[in-house]
């Protein structure tokens, strides 16, 4: 007789290791995009180096086709711009 407490199948997945000291939890903790956001979101201003976790600074990830772009604004120095991740450097084809 099957022990009802032991499912014959499981959708259990080991939770990811903490990213930058924080374990991701919540409904979508398994979402790879969410995990990549935690890993890749800029943490410091590319201009002045201030932490982007401070009041007034923001980094919002959006997608442009396959490109992952972090629209970022630093309250410390006012720098605002888009930071894009690059998985592979690709050049354009030479003109004929």
């Amino acid at each position, binding site marked *: 007789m099957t022990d009802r407490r032991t499912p014959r199948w499981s959708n259990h997945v080991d939770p990811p290791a903490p990213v930058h000291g924080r374990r991701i939890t919540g409904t*979508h903790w398994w979402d790879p995009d969410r995990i990549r956001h935690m890993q890749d979101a800029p943490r410091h201003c590319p201009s002045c180096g201030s932490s982007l976790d401070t*009041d007034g600074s923001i980094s919002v990830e959006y997608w442009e086709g396959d490109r992952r772009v972090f629209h970022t604004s630093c309250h410390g120095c006012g720098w605002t711009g888009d930071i894009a991740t690059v998985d592979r450097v690709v050049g354009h084809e030479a003109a004929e």
Partner: protein
Amino acid sequence: MLKKELNDALTRLGPGTPMGDLLRRYWYPVAFEQDLQDWPIRKVRLLGEDFALWKTPDGGYGLLQERCPHRHASLVYGVVEEEGLRCGYHGWLFDGEGSCLDQPAEPETSSFKDSVAAFAGRTAAMGGLVWAYIGPDPAPELPRFDVYVDDGFKDVGHTVLPCNWLQIMENAVDPHHVEWLHGRYFKFLGEQRGFLAPPGFQKAHVKVGFDPIEWGILKRRVLEGNTEENDDWKVGHPLVFPYSMRVGGGGIEQMQIRVPIDDTHTWVLFYSSHQPLGVTEFPEQVFPVSYEFPWLDEDGEHIVDYIEGQDIMAWVTQGDITDRTAEHIGKGDIGVIMLRRMFRDQMALVAEGRDPTVGFTREPHDRVGLPCEKDKFGVDFLEFVLSWLSMGSSRYSPALDQIKKLYIDASAAQGAAPAAATE
């Protein structure tokens, strides 16, 4: 996509939170004036805090923390007196500033009352609404936006929604949803259920634009078949920071108000001032027409065969506080990104002890005019207005027929005017 900490910072609005500190710098409507006609005290909840709102014998209003500082009974069950509001439990009396004036059970010589105070907000009346300010003194000016103070026939549909106010505000800088939610989806419903959805809402967006302005973010669009010379682009309409959107067309002048009750509830009001072109005299009103409109049917399903019902479906089904750590936004969401940035900027100013710079004024004034297109979507004015009235939340208005007649009569008079002029 946002970090959890950032999503929390943008959506938590209770006392002592960074967003709560920012939002407490603004005035909010908390009741209709007519709500206090039959009974002069009512409970209101604003930014996660509960208050007793009362009408004073001289026609003004007062706002105190709901719980009496004595032993925390609700002041909503109090007694209105000349000097203020008296707790129904032991008779402690507070004036509109929160000072304790009387503690009947204490010895006459006691100075105990001088050391006790209740939190008191500021109140004002405008456009048939009672407005409250619960932030630090000095309070800013209550912006006297055109919709509230201009002549017109006032009609207000309202309801409470179980979601955070920010996801409703993000919808206000998301022009693309119009052609899908109110266009393609509405058309699909019409095809299934046998009605004609308004074609004006089905036009595709060619271009959208957003400009920061003194009062918020001005939103513009060019629709297929139209140009930058159309009002939708040339004039546009603004998100009014931090909790409203000014919209309209064809004589409808509307403020869509989203009052943050707490983290997961929002009081939504569609405040319309009907001003058909050429009309200067309107049916007399003591107070605006007000009514609560439904958005769920008897089975608990969303009612989606009207425009605001579709919006509400989208706002509420995102969850009570949508999880922005799992969203996937694209280039089409730049307005949303811009709004989040504006909130972060303004939160930082307040954290530094400064005034917000958007949607905020200390300048006394009579009226604030906001840009808002009249020619909406390049559709005939009367056609636009009638579809808005019949296929929007106004369809639940007890004054619907009266409002339609106002526009039809005005249109007929406009049509007759050139002929009359040639005679």
